[in-house]
């Protein structure tokens, strides 16, 4: 029964650009766009003028030039002969390393503290409150320094691990049954922990390095070497995880049909770890323990441990400080998230006969997570951005390499800064896109 009547065609008047809702927003947008374009071209124009005035060019050729400086902590091979471009990647890897480990630690700390803050134990709850308040209300930069300093002040130096000639002499005398002078030392002042493999020092932790006797070889793409051994290990892990998922699915099916869930944890453990262990054994996995080179007499030589890999004090301090700082914020988020789930939910669950543990895992946590995750992710973002403060403790991250030494040595501040912002922006965008996808997938259905 619907029939459409033609509305008479009106003539277009110029005033309609402002007074007609159909055109008005378009008018505004076009004006805004033009202004924006003009402003942008103005900025670009200025930049070109300025570069010309300074006799500079805009190019990224410097990325292929020898960097000439050294970096303490590197995840990918790097020497001072490598290019600035490679230094950039070293920095980026360092940034991501701190961000990744920091986020994990911060989450653990945050969840723990958040839950403990709700604890019925008065003292524990109070201590956690003090922790949260102190960390939240003092600049993160100060925390980084605060934590770094003890790490570099307390603990032995590598030289305290050294066996010296006098020690050997003293031992020799002792072996011959001679008497030692009262102040004689026979053993080094410090020794390694964990079955004599890890040395904890002021300069960081010297860790044993995993090595393979029969590696599977490698191939390179450009500057980067990719090892087949690593790929193989990754493949095995992925396969194990997939098989484990199958196992769990099967267990669920069993539960759905019989009501009883079969125990799977030991099967899971086996599936998850056995293949990897086998592969590693097949490839001849062994550890290279950091140690001082020794002379024939057994005297330690050199300044530092050789072999193994090092976790520098700066990496440790930055990660721990960021984790503790961000953890304080996460604790608040977790606490708020749990408290946001009304008491009625757990009461209803209790009334149905569910035990507190099940109530937590089936009713409270799934709901709390929806509240917790979005602010949690933005804390991750903050932590990632705060890694740029690594410079305060000599940690060379992206800011320290590309935005620090490279910028300084080449004088290409425009190029370096723009590239650095772009990289940070990309990281942030990736994280927040992930967050949005998650958010959409867990949105509560409502009318």
């Amino acid at each position, binding site marked *: 029964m619907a029939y459409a009547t033609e509305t008479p065609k009106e003539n277009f008047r110029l005033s309609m650009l402002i007074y007609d809702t159909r055109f008005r927003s378009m008018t505004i947008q076009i004006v805004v766009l033009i202004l924006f374009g003009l402003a942008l071209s103005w900025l670009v124009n200025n930049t070109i003028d300025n570069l010309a005035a300074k006799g500079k060019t805009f190019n990224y050729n410097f990325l292929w030039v020898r960097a000439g400086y*050294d970096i303490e902590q590197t995840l990918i091979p790097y020497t001072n002969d490598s290019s600035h471009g490679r230094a950039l990647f070293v920095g980026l890897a360092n940034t991501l390393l701190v961000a990744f480990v920091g986020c994990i630690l911060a989450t653990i700390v945050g969840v723990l503290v958040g839950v403990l803050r709700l604890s019925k134990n008065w003292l524990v709850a109070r201590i956690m409150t003090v922790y949260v308040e102190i960390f939240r209300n003092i600049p993160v930069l100060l925390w980084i320094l605060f934590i770094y300093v003890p790490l570099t002040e307390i603990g032995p130096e590598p030289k305290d691990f050294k066996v010296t000639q006098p020690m050997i002499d003293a031992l020799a005398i002792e072996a011959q049954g001679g008497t030692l002078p009262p102040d004689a030392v026979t053993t080094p002042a410090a020794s390694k922990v964990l079955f004599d493999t890890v040395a904890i020092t002021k300069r960081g932790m010297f860790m044993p390095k995993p090595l393979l006797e029969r590696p599977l070889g490698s191939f390179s793409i450009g500057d980067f070497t990719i090892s087949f051994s690593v790929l193989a290990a990754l493949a095995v892990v992925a396969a194990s995880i997939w098989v484990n998922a199958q196992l769990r699915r099967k267990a669920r099916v069993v539960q759905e049909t019989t009501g009883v869930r079969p125990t799977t944890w030991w099967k899971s453990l086996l599936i998850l770890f056995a293949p990897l262990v086998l592969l590693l054994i097949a490839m001849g996995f062994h550890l290279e323990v950091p140690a001082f080179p020794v002379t024939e007499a057994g005297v330690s030589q050199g300044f530092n441990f050789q072999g193994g890999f090092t976790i520098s004090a700066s990496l440790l301090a930055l990660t721990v400080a960021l984790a503790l700082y961000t953890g304080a914020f996460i604790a608040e988020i977790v606490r708020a998230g749990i408290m946001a789930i009304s008491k009625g939910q757990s009461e209803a669950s209790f009334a149905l006969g569910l035990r507190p543990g099940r109530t937590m895992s089936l009713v409270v946590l799934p709901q709390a997570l929806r509240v917790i995750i979005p602010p949690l992710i933005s804390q991750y973002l903050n932590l990632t951005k705060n890694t740029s403060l690594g410079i305060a403790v*000599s940690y060379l991250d992206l800011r320290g390499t590309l935005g620090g030494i490279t910028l300084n040595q080449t004088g290409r501040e425009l190029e370096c800064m723009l590239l650095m912002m772009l990289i940070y922006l990309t990281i942030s965008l990736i994280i927040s896109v992930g967050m949005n996808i998650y958010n959409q997938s867990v949105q509560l259905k409502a009318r």
Partner: protein
Amino acid sequence: GTLDDVKARGELICGSNTGLTGFGAPGADGTWTGFDVDLCKALAAAVLGDASKVKFVPTTGETRFTALASGEVDVLIRNSTWTFSRDTELALDFVAVNYYDGQGFMVKKDLGVTSAKELNGATVCIQTGTTTELNLADFFKANNMTYTAVNVADDSEGQRQYLAGACDTYTTDASGLAASRATMADAENHIILPEIISKEPLGPVVRHGDNQWGDIVRWTYFALLIAEEKGITKANFEEIAASTTDPEVKRLAGLEGDMGAKIGLDNEFAKRAVLAVGNYGEVFDANIGESTPIGLARGLNALWTQGGLQYAAPFR
């Protein structure tokens, strides 16, 4: 040019360090003192007639050259090493060398090291964003040695880490090492190794292209040197100027010639500079010399007449 800007502003803006003992740091009352600072003051006295009309803008290793290039500061007097690339690529001009430095190493005595060549495998504390990083890499490479770098943000941090034992040796300009050592509670337990692994000519920097301003900075500095050469001090300047027959001294005192006019200043600019801070030797002695806690010897920075490198072009 810069000169007009400075005159119009009535104030000289000097890029300085954020705080380097002996060379430039603010005191408890907020006044800046130090070796570099005195040169700024001399410049202010020469250009504006008043040594106090100078503002110090602290710059970091990263911001210093940009601050100069963008005109934020008129001149950078802040232990910056003169290198080819800085002189050319950064479009800056180094107009003089007011301190000849070189990179050295400090170690603890009980490490048993007596030469930098024995540092193979050592952990080295080093300030980021300076030429020292590059020198260090080159030195170890040339001697076929390896090292671990701990890149610290500033001098006090480097010193702290070195003392704490976070590194085996601390490397920076020898003057800085001396200054650090001087303030240590147990100075006798630390030695500065004999090797100086680089040339570090430090001097005032101006923007490329403003030659008149460059001349002013250079010749103000030279005036201080010449004053020392001629035995002129802050105290006896008037006296000597009155009695002298030396034409160069007369020109320095503004009694003869028209040197000032040629660089856009008046004739007494050199006199004012010297009267404001004293001659080069006085500045050195007052801030970093052997009578100060820092206790640097003149060494390379002695006048050429005394076997050093400080050599001013003739003031004519």
